[in-house]
């Protein structure tokens, strides 16, 4: 067993988990909304990519490019017309509604695509690898990881460097006062969920090309996403990347010791962080 290799694989796997989690983290950071259908939305996007690949013969990357604006529109509409109505002092309504949405998406996908597990074929890229001195890394895992970094850099640039990003943070602080500045919180929330769905599409691209998925795959992606967000600290996107990496590392190291321990050791790492740093590793200063 090559430990260096194990660690590299763990870090790269963490990129996938960070992609699962980034949209969840963004939405939570801006509107304190926990979207229990997040994992199912990833799977929905994966099926969308699959349809575009099989029906139109598109390359999966091109298919994701086509799917992204569609998913943005779905996210925008979902937030504006449905989820905005659930936001308020009570945290229960958004949980119940997104839980219901999760079931609706799963059953809708079962109806349309059956329970068979699927995969998006990425051709020769799937098995391509690069030699990095003592270790080799798959091209797809590397692309996943760098996509995660790019997504997080991009979202951070937007949040901290643009006028819309200031509006995101102002709305998150105080929606009523944000309204006095001319910001429409309902639209800001819709935009945030739309962006989260673009990230979800990127996550779906790598989920679909790297592993099998079926209509019921969503909830377990949601768990990984949750764990990454909480390990990293609520509201911090870099923390979410770190959280994803810690989760990925724990899983691959666990699996290297005993293949049956993969999933368990991820959850144990999560519990350990929760025990010693309940606010996560990089909590946001203001909450």
């Amino acid at each position, binding site marked *: 067993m090559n430990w260096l290799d194990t660690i590299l694989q763990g870090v790269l796997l963490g990129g996938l988990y960070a992609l699962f989690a980034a949209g969840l983290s963004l939405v939570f950071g801006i509107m304190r909304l926990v979207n229990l259908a997040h994992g199912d939305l990833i799977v929905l996007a994966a099926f969308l990519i699959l349809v575009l690949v099989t029906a139109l013969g598109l390359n999966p990357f091109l298919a994701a490019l086509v799917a992204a604006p569609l998913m943005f529109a779905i996210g925008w509409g979902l937030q504006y017309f449905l989820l905005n109505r659930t936001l308020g002092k009570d945290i229960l309504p958004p949980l119940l509604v997104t839980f219901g949405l999760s079931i609706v998406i799963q059953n809708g996908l079962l109806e349309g695509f059956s329970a068979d597990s699927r995969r998006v074929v990425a051709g020769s890229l799937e098995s391509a690898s690069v030699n990095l001195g003592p270790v080799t890394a798959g091209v797809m895992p590397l692309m996943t990881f760098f996509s995660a970094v790019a997504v997080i850099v991009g979202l951070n640039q937007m949040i901290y460097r643009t*006028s819309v990003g*200031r*509006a995101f*943070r*102002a709305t*998150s*602080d*105080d929606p*009523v*006062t*944000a*309204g*006095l*500045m*001319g*910001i*429409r919180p309902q639209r800001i929330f819709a935009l945030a969920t739309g962006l989260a769905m673009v990230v979800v599409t990127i996550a779906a691209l790598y989920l679909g090309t790297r592993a099998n998925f079926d209509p019921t795959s969503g909830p377990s992606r949601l768990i990984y996403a949750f764990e990454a967000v909480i390990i990293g600290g609520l509201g911090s996107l870099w923390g979410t990347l770190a959280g994803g990496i810690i989760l990925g590392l724990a899983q691959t190291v666990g699996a290297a010791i005993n293949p049956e321990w993969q999933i368990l050791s991820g959850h144990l790492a999560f519990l350990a962080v929760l025990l010693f740093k309940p606010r996560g590793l990089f909590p*946001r200063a*203001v909450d």
Partner: protein
Amino acid sequence: MALLETRGLTASYGDFQALFGVDITVGAGETIAIIGANGAGKTTLMRSIAGVLSNQAASILYRDEPIGALQAPDIVARGIAMVPEGRKLFPSLTVEENLLVGRYGRRTDGPWHLDSVYGLFPVLKERRNTPSTALSGGQQQMVAIGRALMSNPELLLCDEISLGLAPVIVRDIYAAFPRIRETGASIVIVEQDIAQALKVADRVYCMMEGRVTLSGRSADLTRDAIHTAYFGADPGAEHHELA
């Protein structure tokens, strides 16, 4: 023509009625003060005008157009900005970001932009990259005023800008008002400090229990008249001292 006019404005929080038919007018370029005891309804009046509380469309007229039913972002877009009670800065934004966010809903060119706001309150320029939470109360109030100015409003609503601040600081902040008036903006200030209100305003409205009980030019109002309008005519009121 009045810039702003309220006509029989009412407002309620659930079953509790806070305003009972308030009529005020604000002329172009005029500064008016609204005074009144705690709970008189001053903030409710400001929040109604600013669109935070929704009203009958015709109960608030701005440039003779009914705006009572509009939401806050539509009100800002028309040129009414508010400095809310308690400053309400955005804690996760720096001083400069707080100022910039004031332009979000109205990017009109005018006298106010980052440089001129820093000219008005030079200390803010030194602290431009500080989190707004790290400022003193007076500096925070300056940010709140600057943030409202960034939309180049024609009407500026200021709710209790001297609340909780030391007198010297209040004086510094009010020193900025002549320069705001020079730009031609109308100003409505809510002020508990009656002496301060009379000094800065052309006209004063005094409110009690959701109604206007007295109004007039600052120079014409007598201490006794204000006293009665402020506290009502009950005998116990004599024990209150006016500032």
